[in-house]
């Protein structure tokens, strides 16, 4: 139901993002999904990678500020309105979305969701029998 996500603190400096990417490349770590949240002074790079533990160690060694968080991961039907349907369920349960991003892996459409109330979100997922994704599904 959750996938480990890397969160890397990213100062707004030219070439900074690529420094992170090159560390991952040197360590032969594949990026499955990537998104950057930004403010005027800094951002947070969020990434799903092939080996989160190895990525964490490698980035730490290179002095990056990095942590790993468990993020809810759902599989969506490859049909119009499927993401909206999921979000409707969260709204009905009065759950606020902090951020989402979506990506495809093989034939699967995957939705990553961070809410303000993880427990309640899990309840919604279980009650409604939503399809979830595990890390093994991304191998």
């Amino acid at each position, binding site marked *: 139901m959750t996938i480990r996500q890397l*969160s890397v*603190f990213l100062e707004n400096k030219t070439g900074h993002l690529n420094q992170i990417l090159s560390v991952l490349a040197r360590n032969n770590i594949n990026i499955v999904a990537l998104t950057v*949240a*930004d403010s005027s002074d800094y951002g947070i790079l969020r990434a799903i990678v092939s080996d989160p533990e190895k990525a964490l160690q490698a980035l730490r060694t290179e002095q990056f500020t990095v942590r790993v968080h468990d993020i809810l991961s759902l599989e969506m039907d490859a049909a119009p309105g499927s993401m909206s349907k999921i979000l409707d369920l969260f709204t009905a349960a009065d759950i606020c979305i902090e951020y989402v991003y979506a990506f495809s892996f093989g034939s699967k459409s995957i939705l990553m969701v961070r809410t303000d109330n993880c427990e309640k979100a899990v309840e919604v997922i279980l009650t409604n029998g939503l399809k979830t994704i595990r890390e093994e599904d991304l191998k």
Partner: protein
Amino acid sequence: MIWNKDIECMDRQKMRALQSERLKQLVDRVYNNVAFYRKRMDEMGVEPSDIQSIDDIVKLPFTYKTDLRDNYPFGLFAVPMKDIVRVHASSGTTGKPTTVGYTKNDIENWREVVARCLTMAGIGSDDIMQISYGYGLFTGGLGVHYGAETVGCSVVPISGGNTRRQLQLMSDFSSTVLACTPSYALHLADALAENGYSLADMKLKAGVFGAEPWTENMRLELEKKWGIRAHDIYGLSEIMGPGVANDCICHTGLHVHEDHFFPEIVHPDTKQPVADGEEGELVFTTLTKEGIPLLRYNTRDLSTLNPETCECGRTSVRMKKITGRSDDMLIIRGVNLFPSQIEHVLLELGETSAHYMLYVDRDNNLDTLELKVELDETRLTDTIRDLQNLSRKISQALNSAIGLSVKVTLVEPKTIARSEGKAVRVVDNRKK
């Protein structure tokens, strides 16, 4: 015009005699009424009877800002609180402010010295003075206010801030004198056009600027921008507040009101008095102060003294415009700030590492502060909002501790340079 010719043009020998007399009384007063000074003097083996003339002042102990802090709030007061009629305070280095108290006589003397300052700046009862120094615990507003009333100015006690209103009243009231920090005066000048005014709308003819160090170049720039005479009023709350010294129309140094505040210059390292004209730390002894009299208070301001008679006729000793400080204290918008105060707040919060760099800049003639501080990895979450909340929390804590707004920027750990010797914590880009 000279407000008090007897004193300001007094023969120097006579002045020494007056100072000697006052010093003897002062030493008696502090020895008998302030435990701190009695202890210091006893430790040094100095008795009040050892002080027979102003030359004996070198036998007396120095006083530092830390002494005021250590005796917070009223430990250095030499009279009971029933005789104190007013208290002022400035922000302190560890969250505790520096407190000073005034008796009725002190307030009268303060009035007198500010009246002298304004008169030597050519200001009198025909003037409408807009006082844009902050009123309140800060000595600037009320200090200048009483003196301005004494010389008979029509006082507009508008206090600091609100640029649009400042300009509106300056125009509507035909203010002829502006009293504020030099940087705020520049800011106001630059804000004229965007607020729909021009110099032609204003009747300003003089400015009394102080509460922060400023260069002669800045003084000339202010004169040009406003078409006025710009004067430097020097003071610090520990000694009195604004009015300790002021430059006359000759602008060849600031006349010190040495019948009240005896100045010395000492070498920053040895603390020994230096010869006239040599630069060092400016030290004051408050010859007449009753509330919180201080012996040889070291201001850490760097200056020189010139005892020659001024072209204006005054014989009082002149101090050179302050050129800098011997410690790391910054003056931001008239507020004293030690980098250690920032460190203290960060350590107390414990949300980040204590590695920081403070950038001081001047934007539109107003001082700005930006703090770059290293993010602690354990505080990193996956949302920007948490980081923004952290910045805001630090910014609010700093604001309440130092009374200044600070832009807080989080940076990556280990990106702020570590120094092997004395840490460089401040980059001051205001210096021209």
